């Protein structure tokens, strides 16, 4: 075991402040990115769990939302013309005003509460909601893989919708309730789990229900196409062939490609990018400042031992290497601590209904970031070694 590692392990209390600083720097960045990506995943949960092997978007679109991802209806037969394609269905969506309906008793209770000046739910609620559709046919390409046949059956009934359990409270409804969507009565037929969306609640309904509500796409343009093929293992090859055929008129993505691009598009978003950049900068600043001072103090505490090595002929460069190695190990321990903290926070977040998701690339970047902070701090602490004057030991 090297001197640096042995020192870190034996005198861990001395280095604790540095490790904790690094851990919180890492948490600051990881938790935020994790939350944003988690929210992004919430938007696209239905797509991530779709049966489609390939998704076809308009050219230039990188994500299913937040851009013109649709394409002309005439592209549907073009995609169908590939011999391995079995099903093609456009994704459709809408949005509008959602209101819950209270019984006269509930209404009276809510009014009484309001009169007494109490807070609390139970009153009338109005929210804007997103609407996405499925085809209410078991196993169809637009149906998410985790929808049971009972759920599909329930959605097949006219004006029946699905709401995620995390949105129930916000919308003030429960399973079986009636509600008003854009002035028309609908029924909460299904409650889903695992489709949180903390920005705007989402209703899922059948394509036929959307049509009866008068909001289905009937014009020249349709939403992104969900495509299933004969052999899902060949998704990459078929996507490439479709892209060749498209000649720039659309772009076919495999599900994985699109999921990656989705989280990427999320981070490219201006405000989120600025927020993340700023907190990464803050994390860097705090991490470097605390780690630097801690390392300085710890090296000062062993300065006589370093001086005795100098006396015995170990060069200054070698001592610097020891300090740099020490800071590297502090960084590694900091990464582990950051991982632990972030895991705890994500448990809390999940319990609170906030989805978090950590792409491996992100974790790798933050890990490298923390080690860089530690090494930078070590670099700044090198100046202390000047105090290791072996002649001072002779007195």
């Amino acid at each position, binding site marked *: 075991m090297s001197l640096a590692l042995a020192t870190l392990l034996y005198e861990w209390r001395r280095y604790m402040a540095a490790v904790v600083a690094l851990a919180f720097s890492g948490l600051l960045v990881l938790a935020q990115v994790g939350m944003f990506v988690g929210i992004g995943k919430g938007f696209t949960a239905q797509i991530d769990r779709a049966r489609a092997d390939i998704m076809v978007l308009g050219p230039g679109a990188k994500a299913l939302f937040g851009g013109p991802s649709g394409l002309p209806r005439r592209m549907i037969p073009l995609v169908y013309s590939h011999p391995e394609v079995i099903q093609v269905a456009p994704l459709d969506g809408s949005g509008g005003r959602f209101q819950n309906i209270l019984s006269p008793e509930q209404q009276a209770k809510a009014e009484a509460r309001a009169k007494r000046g109490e807070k609390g739910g139970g009153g009338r609620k109005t929210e804007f909601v997103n609407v996405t559709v499925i085809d209410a046919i078991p196993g169809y390409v637009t149906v998410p893989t985790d929808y049971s046949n009972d759920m599909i059956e329930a959605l097949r009934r006219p004006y029946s919708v699905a709401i995620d359990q995390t949105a129930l409270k916000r919308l003030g409804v429960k399973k079986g309730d009636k509600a008003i969507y854009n002035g028309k009565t609908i029924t909460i037929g299904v409650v889903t789990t695992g489709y949180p969306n903390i920005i705007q609640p989402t209703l899922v309904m059948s394509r036929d229900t959307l049509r009866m509500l008068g909001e289905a796409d009937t014009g020249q343009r349709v939403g992104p196409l969900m495509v299933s093929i004969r052999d899902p293992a060949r998704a990459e090859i078929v996507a490439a062939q479709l892209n060749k055929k498209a000649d720039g008129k659309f772009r076919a993505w495999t599900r994985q490609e699109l999921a990656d691009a989705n989280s990427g598009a999320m981070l490219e978003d201006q405000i989120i990018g600025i927020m993340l950049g700023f907190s990464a900068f803050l994390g860097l600043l705090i991490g470097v400042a605390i780690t630097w001072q801690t390392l300085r103090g710890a090296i000062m505490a062993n300065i006589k031992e370093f001086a005795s090595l100098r*006396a015995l002929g170990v060069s200054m460069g070698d001592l610097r290497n020891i300090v740099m190695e020490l800071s590297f190990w502090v960084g590694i321990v900091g990464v582990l601590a950051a991982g632990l903290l972030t895991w705890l926070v994500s448990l809390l977040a999940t319990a609170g209904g906030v989805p978090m998701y950590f792409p491996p690339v992100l974790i790798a970047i933050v890990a490298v970031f923390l080690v860089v902070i530690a090494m930078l701090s070590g670099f700044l602490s090198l100046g202390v070694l000047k105090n290791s004057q072996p002649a001072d030991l002779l007195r």
Partner: protein
Amino acid sequence: MSGNNNAHKRGESALSAKGLVKRFKTGRTFIEVLKGVDFDARHGDVTMVMGPSGSGKSTLVAALSGLLKPDEGHVAALEADDLWSLPKGKIDRFRLDHCGFIFQGFNLFPALTAKQQVMTVLKYQDVGPGEAARRAQAALESVGLGPRVNQRPSELSGGEKQRVAIARALAKNPNLIFADEPTSALDGKSGETVIKLLRAAATERGAAVICVTHDPRLEAYADRVIHIEDGRILDDVRRTPEANPAPLSH
């Protein structure tokens, strides 16, 4: 112990210095700590440098060993004709190859076991891990710490710590050993063990041992005693070390 045993060089000059001057600045005035000191030491000798505190004896050792550059004067040590004309890196290398140091404080890394302390220095001499472990074990056994090689400094007594420091210095097989008050932090019995180890390093391995002390009881182990006061050498006496010196502890 293997390595460059210099027993055959016994009596040859290992180190010589001429006209060493060192001044320190205190406030606006300079204090001359060394006022033109000439010094030499031979292989196989234990040379004691004695004097009251502030006499310049530690500064002399620092100048001789390449730790503190004198303002004037000339040091020739082993194959280096003019030690202080060498570039810094070469002086470091000279110390790494040839010098062992024993300080009053033990200066051991708290995190390392006795064996690791010794091996750390050997590593920088480009000794392989297997060979370093073997030499560290041998060095620690030679100072009587064979059973305690895996103890950390916090588990060792003062005398044992100093013996680890000696093993750390001896494992390099140095030709020059500088000891600065090696016994003053130790009880009589431990001090006796330490000075005997230094005596043995000179006699058996032909190293030139230069030992700064103000403990008159150590004189019994010396081949030569130099008294220094106010930056000048007062006297320089050759003597025969006693075969059975009186114990340091009373």
